[in-house]
């Protein structure tokens, strides 16, 4: 069976989504830390 992600064109795109989602979360957390310190 072909191994292709159902939502995006390639696995690399899926990995990028997971990576950047978490990167954005960390930036958001950092802003929260600075903003409410």
């Amino acid at each position, binding site marked *: 069976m072909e191994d*292709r*992600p159902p939502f995006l064109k390639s696995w690399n795109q*899926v990995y990028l989504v*997971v990576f950047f989602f978490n990167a954005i979360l960390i930036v958001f957390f950092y802003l929260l830390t600075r903003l409410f310190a």
Partner: protein
Amino acid sequence: MNWIDWLVMLATLIGIAAFGIWKTRHINSSETHMRGSDDLNWMVIGFNIMATQASAITFLSLPGQAYEDGMRFVQFYFGLPLAMIFLSIFVIPYFYKLKIYTAYEYLETRFGLNTRVFTALLFLIQRGFSTGLSFFAPSIVMSQLLGWSLNFTILFIGGLILAYTYIGGYKAVSYTQTLQFTVIWLGLFLAAGIVFYQLPADVHFVDAVNIAGKMGKINLVDFKFDLSNRYNIWSGVIGGAFLAISYFGTDQSQVARYLGGKSLTEGRLGLMLNGLIKVPMQFIILGVGVLVFVFYLFNQAPLHFNANNVSRLGESAAEQYKVLETQQGMVFEQRRNAVHDLMLAMRNGDAQKTKQAQTEVQTLHATELQLREDARTLIKDHVPDASTKDTDYVFISYVLQYMPIGVIGLLLAMILAAACSSGASAINALATTTVIDIYQRLYKPSASDQHYLKMSKLFVVVWSLISLAFAFSAQLFDNLIQAVNIIGSIFYGVILGVFLAAFFQPKVKGRAAFLAAILTQIIVIAVYVMSEYKMDLNLLGWVIPVRVAYLWLNLIGCLLVMGIAAVLQGVMPERGKEGVM
């Protein structure tokens, strides 16, 4: 506790177990019992992975940790998404191609039988120990709250898990975990919503976060590199990724979750789902702890959160405790007014007043912390066998005192469901590894399917009993969690090192890998013993003091296996057939 809460709690837990048993009552093949029928979709795999990792301690300890120390623990999970991507690229494709039952089976194709059996044994020792803890640790807390005896609580959790894991094996674990995970999320959202709702009407969400920030609880990200500071972004991303790769890539209780997928695609997506949800999930759990903290700035908190300790104080000590409580009440009133001033100053954007009020709140808070410490000392003096660390009781004592009827039952069910979900994965993995990697491979390679089904069920019972025995005897050890972490650190690094050598050192063959694993295991144990007893290593006249904190043993074990294997492969002559015992 109200009867409605008892009903909700028991109906949820027993209902989930009964559903698992009913859905899997016709299972009659060893393959389905040990690794399912390869039909799970990505969402179920993702839920099962998260339910396996979330234990009762997650829900008892984390909110309490945020209450005391803020949210910085969330950084510990920052490396997990990277680990998910790494496993998806490098590890899962191999596992799926070989259609294996256990991760250790893969090692035979690469390094031969010896390494497979050795690694499987290391896993069994380490996981067997820690599963006992996963029954014991929540039972201490729950038995005190429910008024059950400790042994009965351990038996209740263990018995529930045994019932459905025995009947339905892997499939029952998967069905129940999906429901348990749903209960966990439902409980989490309800808890977060209700804590927020119970804040005073004039305290808005932004006020709550502002106050928590001024009290140092919104310390989510720390960029300062400091080896002695356990939680900063560097240790979180690097150490967290390293730990997550070894846990999700080599621990059969996790590997089994994504091996049961319909296809490689589903397995990979399951891991990606974990990579997307894990950090926000931990953020919410810690956030609940911070909201509880803000709640207790406006409502007087118990002086000591473990009510059971307080009830064990004798008459005169109880009097002294009351005096401390009265002092705490006065400090609380002053602090509440100061917090109110702080809130208004922040709303008005008055920097000077804000600073002034913040200093006052912090001073009063420090006084309250000192009173708590005095209460702990008082308890320790009068009840010497009591454990006075009460952070694990912060959230649960709040739940019991302030949550509405019905929700209490659901939240207790959430905590016990988490205990069942992680325990059941472990028992299933222990039984499968014993049957596949030891029993079938070494003793009975060609018996009937019914025989292996019988053995799979038998080992579910055997490992449940071993775990229960550990849990019952756990009371004898002083610091159990530390003991289990030490055992984990001693074995995990070697297991990971063998797997990484298999994936990334193509020149290393079976004999070198096996010898490297054994040598490293001996060295790691020696380093641990020498560090523990403060012994020195005398190396041809050089005296080296060996002092290594046990958390580093993971890394040392992993790197040593890979290094020694490479050296041995370089100096050892090739042999015809590798890795035969």
